């Protein structure tokens, strides 16, 4: 089956990101396809490479980046939600005159149309969050 996943909560505060990650790993290992992972609301905070969690805890952001690289996942951060919360890629940094970017490897910033398309193109769209 072709799945898309929406993550609506930030890392560590809420288990949505962990649950989505575990779901995707399980789905991939069962032979399913992941069309796209879309990060919205505070979920965009999963896409900053500047997090430094304690060494004895999971690194949620790195975990997403590694999963994306292993399985060629499309991790999309909503641009409007990202702008509000300071998640920036090099293009956005330039456009908005910011002094740096923080997008993590494997993530890209794009629009809400990517979410709608994911809903249309996938057999199931799963939403993780409150």
């Amino acid at each position, binding site marked *: 089956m072709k799945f898309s996943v*929406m993550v*609506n909560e930030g890392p560590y505060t809420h288990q949505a990101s962990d649950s989505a990650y575990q779901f995707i790993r399980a789905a991939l290992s069962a032979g399913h396809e992941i069309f796209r992972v879309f990060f*919205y*609301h*505070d979920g965009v905070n999963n896409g900053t490479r500047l997090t430094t969690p304690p060494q004895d805890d999971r690194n949620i952001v790195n975990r997403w980046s590694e999963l994306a690289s292993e399985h060629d996942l499309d991790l999309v951060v909503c641009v*409007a*939600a990202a702008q509000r919360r300071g998640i920036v890629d090099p293009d956005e940094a330039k456009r908005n005159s910011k002094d740096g970017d923080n997008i993590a490897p494997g993530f890209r910033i794009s*629009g*809400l*149309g990517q*979410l*709608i*398309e994911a*809903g*249309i193109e996938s057999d199931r*769209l799963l*939403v993780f*969050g*409150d």
Partner: protein
Amino acid sequence: MYINRHAPCGTVYAVEGLEVVLIGAAFEQDVCMAFVGDGVFQLKQDQDTAETGMKNFSPAYRALGDYEVNRLYVERESLEERGLTEDDLMPLTWEDEDDDWAEKPSIHIVDRAQLSDLIEEQDILLNF
């Protein structure tokens, strides 16, 4: 169907949810919205956020009709539980081009069982 479950203020879910609905309208999908729980407060008339320092985005709901988002289902029990009636909600309308642009109400009050049936009919549910 976009399911709205949060009050307009207090969390970001309502306003960012509305952004998805307005962007999504460009994709010409058959969409509707449901308002349940505290989500019914999103449609309350005369919202005033001036003293909270937050933006009052409630006028944006009036644009939904122009985007052909014209089926807004509001759960009757959720209204009653919060001491609200349909008269407390914004009079949202849309113009039906197949009926000489007659202005028609967008808000439909449905009970919990009806809403359950409507949810059952949907291909995609997005929760906000």
